[in-house]
């Protein structure tokens, strides 16, 4: 054929070229480059000695105790956060799906946590959790739940849950909005049919609402899991992985290895492992979204 690619292909190529260039340059290339450097022992404190070490960075990683600790911490954080997000977001979306005066105002209020930067969020919670002057102690003390100020973030048994709480607070709005969207897409005749069939409020929720929300729910869960696994900002500002290793999550581990120990090679290896894990997780996510567009 004379024209292998016609006008359509050519214009599509032209339209997609910028995006593809950007993504190739700033996402695909780095990820492969990262694979490459993960085979070297690159320490920026020793700029001139960067031997090829093959898979050593990976084997070191899996024998590193702290790495496994960080995996456990990450899993704990993600499970706790995502469960909480799912439950709270579900309740909120059900509430916002009702018709009542002030619904718009309420959904606007809901956007506040979503809009504020994570750093400001972290700063805010750090101040709330402050063991000396924080609001949490203040409230609990004034309500007589505690008789003296407590240590919060410094308590290794509480810290990961407190960080999760800050994370949940910020993530819930988006999750709720996404769920609300999927609630709104349930055709109302489905409810009417269920009513005619004699289903009560609870039964309608179980048999109509929940099944119809399932895809949206899945999406929210996967998305939030991805966000939780990779989360960094709160750990950086609230605890720096501490106390001890109580909040030493994977992303913090990578940060320390890379930017404190300056071991770029093993840092890259860890990043790669993290990328593969999230990638496997998000397979479903991509498939669902990809089919939709």
């Amino acid at each position, binding site marked *: 054929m004379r024209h292998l690619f*016609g*006008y359509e292909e050519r214009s599509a190529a032209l339209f997609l070229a910028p995006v593809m260039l950007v993504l190739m340059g700033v996402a695909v290339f780095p990820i492969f480059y990262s694979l490459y450097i993960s085979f070297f022992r690159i320490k920026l404190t020793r700029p001139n000695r960067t031997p090829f070490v093959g898979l050593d960075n990976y084997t070191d990683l899996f024998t590193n105790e702290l790495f496994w600790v960080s995996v456990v911490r990450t899993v704990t954080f993600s499970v706790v956060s995502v469960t909480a997000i799912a439950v709270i977001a579900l309740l909120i979306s059900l509430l916002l799906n009702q018709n009542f005066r002030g619904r718009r105002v309420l959904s606007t209020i809901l956007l506040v946590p979503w809009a504020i930067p994570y750093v400001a969020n972290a700063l805010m919670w750090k101040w709330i959790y402050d063991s000396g002057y924080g609001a949490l102690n203040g409230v609990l003390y004034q309500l007589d739940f505690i008789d003296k100020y407590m240590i919060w973030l410094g308590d290794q048994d509480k810290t990961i849950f407190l960080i999760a709480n800050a994370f949940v607070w910020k993530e819930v709005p988006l999750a709720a909005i996404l769920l609300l969207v999927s609630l709104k897409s349930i055709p109302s005749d489905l409810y009417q049919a269920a009513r005619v069939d004699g289903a009560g409020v609870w039964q309608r929720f179980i048999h109509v609402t929940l099944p119809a929300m399932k895809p949206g729910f899945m999406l929210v869960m996967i998305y939030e899991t991805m966000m939780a696994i990779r989360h960094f900002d709160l750990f950086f500002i609230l605890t720096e992985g501490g106390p001890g290793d109580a909040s030493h999550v994977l992303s913090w581990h990578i940060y320390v290895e890379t930017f404190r120990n300056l071991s770029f090679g093993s840092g890259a290896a860890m990043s790669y492992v993290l990328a593969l894990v999230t990638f496997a997780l998000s397979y479903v996510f991509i498939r669902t979204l990809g089919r939709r567009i």
Partner: protein
Amino acid sequence: MARIRFENVEKKYANGFHAVKDLNLEIRDKEFLVLLGPSGCGKSTTLNMIAGLEEVSDGSLLFDDELVNYMPPHKRDVAMVFQSYALYPHKSVYDNIAFGLQMRRAPREETDRRVRDAARKLEIEHLLDRRPSQLSGGQRQRVALGRAMVREPAVFLMDEPLSNLDAALRISMRAEIKELHQEMQTTFVYVTHDQAEALTLADRIVVMRDGVVQQIGSPGDIYERPRNTFVASFLGNPPINYIEGQIKVTDDQMVRFVQGELELNFPAETAAKLADCDGLTVLLGIRAEDVEEGSHGGAGAVLTGKVNSVLPVGSDLFLGFELFGNELFFRVGKDIGHASGDEVSLTVDLNRLHVFDKDSGASLIW
């Protein structure tokens, strides 16, 4: 001046769907050509290929004698009216109509003159400042026509432009479109699945099915002389009736259609074409309107059976008629005095019988 020629044109989609197969067609200048067929038959794809909205996979598409396979739509001198009208929601009626001219950089005064001309002809002058969302379906239809008209294109394409209108409006618009064609003196290609529209409007009709052209001809041709059972069935309301049977050539060179006790004699002209078909199993096609009540036709031209149903449609009457276990429908005068269960005789117009090979469905006489 626009002649459009398809030479061995193929259209295959990326998903493997073969939409148009080996299309050979010449559309004459100033002709009103209708592409007719059920949905998925490739008629819209064909139209889109003319517009340049779909690329030709193989073969050649020529405008006059220029190969336009790879020419994008905006380089072709075509205008198009869509089923959904596809008016630009963010533009006023005026701007909708003027847009095509503006895109082709027509002078401002010229654009204005043409838009107002078209609006006057279509009686939508008072709507020029409105937005499409403020218009009724019929008004939108007119705006869509106006948008195509002002362009004075070499080819005027219409993709089921009337199917979103209600029945009454549809009939009157048909007339207007026909008028428009005469006035504009340009090539029209019109896609529809509505046989009545096709028969009313077309100079020539192309009947398509599964991407293959079934028959090309004038409306009369297509209706009177369908090339196969598909074409025969697709046109006619109620649809053509089929009776399966054998061809029998007698010693005295008479040719008959035989099915059990029923025997119909073909007139000489038809008989000549069937002379070699002795013993062949065929489908005999009788159009609903090609019968008359009564047995005045005499032996060899009369069907006798039981009335199953009587369906008045106003101007006349559809008669459900049982014959050898088949239900046949005929259109008869509304004065017929029969009720369900009555036995009636109908005389067949033997000159208008259709005979198709049972296996291939191809007509044996046309």
